[in-house]
């Protein structure tokens, strides 16, 4: 098996790769690191992502952030400005198109041309690499809020170089979370290496006095991912990032829709990440949390979509996440218009504000749910580090190969795809098939009992059909996919 070590890239290693990376596309040559550091230093505080996150952490507030990306510079500026003013966003994004995500800059170029020709965006995001630093700075300069790159790029090295030099102060992704759900044929060892580069780049910025927020992509496939699985990935990516010198990490989680499970998940996520970072010697990293409103299939009806969005905002508020990534009423159809995007933000804002002074009691059920998540995540992580003989990177590669880490519905060849999730009778996501996950017998019994209760209620076997019903459920107006 191909392998990779969790070890900080040396300056020489980094520079060798950098040379290659900056030559992958002409705009790479625009990168002048010293100039970029000066540029970043010149940014006002209000545009620095970590400043906003740290303030929210201090005040116990939840910030709101949309996704948004369109093919052309002027359109992207218009869109972001609209989300800033009308949408009342706290944090801005630039979502990158899917060609760039697969390093297909030529196709992205075609997309830009065609978009110019037809007057509508043919790309599902903003192709940062193709636009290059000069043009992308026009975007970051046009707004008054911190702005992050959101994408899904297994090899985001060139993207990161250009984005950070363009004034983005936060960068999403990680070697696992931007591989397993986002591509088919790239090996984990490779994507982890690519992301070690991105993290090292971030580390170098940090060492030059520039704080950059890094965010592993929590929801993974967005579809019934049991919290312990995404937590395990988040913790590992945090450890890998910290090793390269990253200092500001936001770990994420995608809403399950079961409120107790969601609160438990966010609260344990922060706790686990902090614990492992400290244990492994990265205690100086600042950890915050990201809650993603429902990431699975949405209802087509916009009023129903608003209900899903608002319910996500409720869970974000009660869980105390540092920020929430907001969906839109257009979700089931396509990339939203600015208006639809702002509408999602406003519904979220209203909900968060109304819940600001309210809290969810630390009940028995909530405590139990937390314990389950903690125990599962720790079991998995323990096996990962064992498989890696003390190395998180090697352990991750081995763990995915062995199905010790296994993400439901992931397209990657490097994911075993044996684990199947399903909801229990209260809507919490459980394991229908735990595959090779290293879970204790107690935990497995717990899942089995929970599912047995549902089977009894529905008078049918626990099985594949139940999972399919659950996949469709929210889009059809329910949480649990009951038989018709």
């Amino acid at each position, binding site marked *: 098996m191909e392998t990779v070590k969790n070890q900080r890239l040396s300056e020489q290693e980094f520079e060798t790769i950098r040379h290659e990376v900056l030559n992958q596309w002409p705009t790479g040559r625009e990168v002048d690191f010293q100039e970029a550091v000066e540029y970043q230093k010149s940014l006002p505080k209000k545009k620095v992502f970590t400043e906003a996150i740290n303030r929210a952490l201090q005040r116990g507030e939840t910030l709101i952030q949309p996704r948004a990306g369109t093919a052309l510079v002027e359109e992207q500026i218009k869109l972001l400005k609209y989300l800033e003013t009308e949408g009342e966003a706290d944090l801005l994004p630039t979502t990158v198109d899917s060609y760039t995500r697969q390093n297909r800059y030529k196709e992205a170029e075609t997309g830009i041309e065609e978009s110019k020709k037809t007057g509508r965006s043919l*790309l599902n995001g903003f192709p940062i690499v193709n636009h290059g630093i000069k043009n992308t700075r026009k975007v970051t300069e046009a707004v008054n809020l911190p702005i992050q790159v959101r994408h899904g790029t297994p090899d985001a090295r060139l993207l990161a170089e250009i984005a950070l030099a363009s004034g983005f102060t936060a960068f999403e992704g990680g070697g696992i979370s931007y591989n397993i759900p986002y591509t088919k044929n790239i090996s984990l060892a490779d994507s982890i290496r690519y992301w070690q580069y991105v993290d090292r780049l971030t580390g170098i910025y940090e060492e030059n006095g520039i704080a950059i927020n890094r965010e592993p992509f929590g929801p993974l496939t967005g579809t019934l991912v049991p919290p312990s699985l995404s937590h395990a990935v988040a913790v590992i990516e945090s450890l890998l990032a910290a090793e390269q010198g990253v200092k500001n990490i936001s770990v994420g989680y995608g809403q399950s829709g079961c409120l107790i499970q969601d609160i438990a998940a966010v609260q344990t996520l922060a706790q686990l990440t902090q614990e492992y970072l400290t244990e492994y010697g990265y205690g100086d990293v600042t950890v915050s949390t990201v809650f993603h409103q429902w990431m699975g299939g949405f209802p087509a009806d916009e009023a129903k979509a608003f209900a899903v969005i608002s319910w996500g905002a409720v869970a974000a508020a009660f869980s105390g996440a540092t920020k929430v990534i907001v969906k839109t009423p257009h979700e089931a*159809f396509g990339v939203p218009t600015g208006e639809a995007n702002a509408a999602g933000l406003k519904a979220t804002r209203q909900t968060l504000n109304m819940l600001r002074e309210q809290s969810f009691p630390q009940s028995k059920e909530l405590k139990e749910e937390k314990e389950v998540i903690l125990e599962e995540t720790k079991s998995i992580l323990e096996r990962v580090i064992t498989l890696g003989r003390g190395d998180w990177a090697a352990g991750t590669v081995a763990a995915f190969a062995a199905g010790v880490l296994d993400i439901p519905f992931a397209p990657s060849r490097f994911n075993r795809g044996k684990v199947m999730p399903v909801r229990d009778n209260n809507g919490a996501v459980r394991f229908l098939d735990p595959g090779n996950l290293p879970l204790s017998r107690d935990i497995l019994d717990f899942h089995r009992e929970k599912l047995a209760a549902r089977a009894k209620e529905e008078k049918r076997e626990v099985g594949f059909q139940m999972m399919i019903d659950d996949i469709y459920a929210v889009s059809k107006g329910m949480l649990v996919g009951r038989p018709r």
Partner: protein
Amino acid sequence: MNPPTLVLGVIGMDVHAVGNKILEYSFTNAGFKVVNLGVMVTQEEFIHAAIETNAKAIIVSSLYGHGELDCRGLREKCVEMGIGDILLYVGGNLVVGKTGFAEVEKTFKNMGFDRVYPPGTPPETAIDDLRCDLGLNNRPDKGGETGGNCKKPAAFGTRV
């Protein structure tokens, strides 16, 4: 009679895998032989698989919005490769944004697709249409009398 073969996949750089898994399950359950190429499938891969398996139809999914760019020329390539009259179906979230479906349908029909489906179309719709277009009765794997009425593709926004 052997069940007819379908080639299934998600085109381009698209990685949306969930719907693809469900389509495989549904088409198989409906009695078709399904060759599922999964996600990130190129036009060439679709065509080679269709030729190799003597497939009756290619079922293309595109969810991520680049469908318009990714699907252009597929029919022409089929013609070139000698399977010019194979059925081509396409569905998913075909274009970027929430737009009227009529126009989308026209675009893809002009590209040579036989059937074009709006977001959220249930697999059953395509199954019915396949039976009709292939002149099959309800269980294609159980022998093949012609049956069913051919229906027009569902209207925009139809959901299960």
